[in-house]
């Protein structure tokens, strides 16, 4: 394995009883990449993350985290994970929890830096049990990054946040992503598009797409041409949009509001997953 590869899944299979959660999933996360695992609920995203973090074992195939099994201590020294924000030890203070987690990592950032980056300075002496939902979310994120790991895994980082908080979160993630890789799950297309350099689309345990956002759009189809002609609005999806427009202009027919558009990521996604988001 070359050392640019941070995480590698090869033909990974996982079933829960009769339910097949992952079927032959293969992908790799390289250094300094932000990869979004995108799919509807129950697609297998969380199972994939759990296997990557060593919280579950796969039934078949192989998973390598920094070239080692994900349960190895050496691999985990380079991995940062967010805890569920409801689950902190109530009585410990924010700075105590950060210090405790940082102690596990050989190259941890100073706790003061993590406090500042995630907007926790004013909360440092607060007990975890008294934090609001948004504050807990920031602490959870800070814990994933405080060890200065080479790969950070985020499960639905913006679920339940309002639009403003979500944008702030994106800024923080982008900024914290320098010199490390991030693997995140989301079912917000917008989030995948805003953050990720690569998108993996997963549905019913199968990996349907692996590439960047514009390739994902291209894959589902041709550009659409719309205009308002003499007989009203027209919307067509020609196999060659450029040729179509050229012919339209040359025909001399009257038209207004000419528009040529690529399908949105949402439409691309819907066509890939057969309509389920």
């Amino acid at each position, binding site marked *: 394995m070359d050392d640019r590869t941070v995480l590698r899944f090869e033909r990974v299979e996982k079933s829960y009883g009769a339910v097949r959660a992952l079927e032959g999933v293969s992908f790799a996360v390289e250094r300094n990449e932000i990869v979004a695992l995108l799919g509807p609920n129950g697609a297998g995203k969380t199972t994939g993350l759990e296997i990557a973090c060593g*919280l579950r074992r796969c039934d078949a195939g192989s998973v390598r985290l920094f070239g080692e099994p994900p349960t190895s201590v*050496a691999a985990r020294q380079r991995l940062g994970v967010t*805890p569920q924000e409801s689950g902190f030890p109530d009585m410990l203070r924010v700075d105590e929890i950060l210090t405790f987690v940082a102690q596990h990592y050989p190259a941890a950032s100073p706790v003061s830096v993590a406090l500042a980056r995630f907007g926790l300075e004013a909360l440092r002496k607060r007990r975890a049990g008294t934090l609001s939902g948004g504050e807990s979310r920031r602490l959870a994120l800070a814990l994933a990054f405080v060890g200065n790991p080479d790969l950070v895994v985020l499960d639905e980082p913006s679920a339940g946040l309002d639009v403003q908080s979500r944008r702030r979160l994106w800024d923080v993630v982008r900024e914290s992503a320098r010199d490390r890789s991030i693997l995140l799950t989301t079912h917000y297309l917008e989030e995948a598009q805003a953050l990720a350099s690569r998108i993996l689309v997963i549905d019913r345990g199968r990996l349907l797409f692996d590439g960047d956002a514009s390739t994902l759009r291209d894959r589902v189809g041709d550009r659409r041409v719309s205009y308002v002609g003499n007989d009203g609005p027209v919307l067509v999806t020609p196999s060659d949009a450029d040729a179509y427009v050229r012919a339209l202009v040359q025909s001399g027919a009257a038209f207004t509001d000419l528009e040529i558009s690529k399908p949105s990521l949402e439409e691309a996604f819907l066509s890939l997953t057969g309509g389920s988001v």
Partner: protein
Amino acid sequence: MRALSLLRAHAQVAFLELLRYPGYVVPTVVFPAMFYVLFDLPYARTHADVADGTALAFIVFAIAGVTFYQFGVGIAAERGRPWERYLRTLPVPPLARFGARIVTAVLFGLMTAAAVALTARALTPIDLSASQWLLVAFYGIAGGVPFVLAGISIGYWSSPRAAVPLATALNLLLAYAGGLWMPPEYLPGIVQRISPYLPTRQFADLLWSVPGGAHAGPALAGLAIFTLVFGIIATIGYRRDERKRYA
């Protein structure tokens, strides 16, 4: 070295967290001392010949109870929590986490034992020298270990709901049959015959050897065997739980 510093970090956090629950700490620390005051003090304060032995028996009751019941069995409730799941993703060897649990439990056990010891010192003619108390503390640490492991074993092998009543019953039965509440020679015949093989009795024999001058070897050997046995059962329980929970 790294494993040791992580052990200390985990023990520190666990201890800190506990100390912030006075509603938990105070009753837990006071309970064995209260038991001692209610059931033993009336007799011990006027009988110098039994003051040492009975106080030491209640010290065993204090340490064994806290380590077995509170810390060992507590694992049954904790292992399903989200924080526990998060800790599993951190780079820490399981042995360091086990070790931290044992250290925390034994330290807390010593605190409850200190409450009994201070009560005895204040109110009875107990007569132990400073070096004897030191030896009691040292034996108290050694004796606490198999009880944490026994508690962890129960915590892993039973459901969280079943663990508590089971441990309560065992805790009280073992205290009684181990001769912690009354001298072993007053126990019913059949119990008297089983008693020497029980971990509570061996723990008591160990502490009684301090003022009594008996050889501590047999009691230490017995406790070492229990440590080994419960260590193995706890480890198998841990692995089994891992397989189930993280399959």
